[in-house]
């Protein structure tokens, strides 16, 4: 992933990978419109759910398994209740249990007594896969997660502005 985006179009940047995937998903979602009720509140809500999942999926796939948070997010997406097909859950579950064994106590202390306590736990709930991370990895993953979230928001904003009347 490029940290400093050059002014020209970079086909391998996170932003372009996410944008391409997400736009593709949007086309698919749009193609599923039932002709009669495409503007009913239920339909709109369903589409909202699908778009949100597509956004997270596109982001996670653009990062692939290079990051703990993206692996955790991909796992969550694949084992959603509505996705009954696919997935060898046994291997993935074994891996998660192993990761959980490395979890430290709730009061997170640095080597010299820098205590983070409650805030670190809150952060663990917000970052996918955070429950199994030690403090160092948590902070590292959070920084990358924030960068990806801001990219996601920027791209989605541009798309929404493009389609706004």
């Amino acid at each position, binding site marked *: 992933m490029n940290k400093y985006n050059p002014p020209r*179009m970079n086909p391998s940047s996170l932003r372009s990978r996410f*944008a391409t995937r997400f*736009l593709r998903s949007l086309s698919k979602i749009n193609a599923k419109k039932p002709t009669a009720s495409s503007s009913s509140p239920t339909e*709109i809500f369903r589409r*909202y759910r699908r*778009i949100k999942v597509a956004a997270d999926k596109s982001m996670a796939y653009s990062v692939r398994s290079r990051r703990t948070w993206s692996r955790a997010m991909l796992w969550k997406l694949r084992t959603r209740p509505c996705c009954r097909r696919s997935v060898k859950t046994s291997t993935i579950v074994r891996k998660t249990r192993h990761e959980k064994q490395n979890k430290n106590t709730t009061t997170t202390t640095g080597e010299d007594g820098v205590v983070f306590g409650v805030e670190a736990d809150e952060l663990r709930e917000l970052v996918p896969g955070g429950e199994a991370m*030690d403090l*160092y990895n948590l902070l590292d993953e*959070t*920084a990358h997660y924030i960068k990806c979230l801001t990219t996601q928001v920027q791209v989605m904003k541009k798309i929404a502005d493009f389609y706004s009347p």
Partner: protein
Amino acid sequence: MSSRRSRSRQSSGSRITDDQIIDLVSKLQQLIPELRGRRSDKVSASKVLQETCNYIRNLHRQVDGLSDRLSQLLASTDTDSDQAAIIRSLLME
């Protein structure tokens, strides 16, 4: 596998120092708009974490809002023909 004291899976054997944690915290601080300009010794680490949590929640809310907006906008458009134009304009920045 790892001893009870070792916290890192990356550097074999060496413990994660407080300095490394402080480095990561100040790196996080630079990513958060509210705290970006302030000197890192004036902002406590726990404040950085707190603001990080708020910022992530804010970003999640923005994603939700944008998904909502897109779901209503898509109700009346056809996306395929526009894709190339969007991608080009998106990536030109």
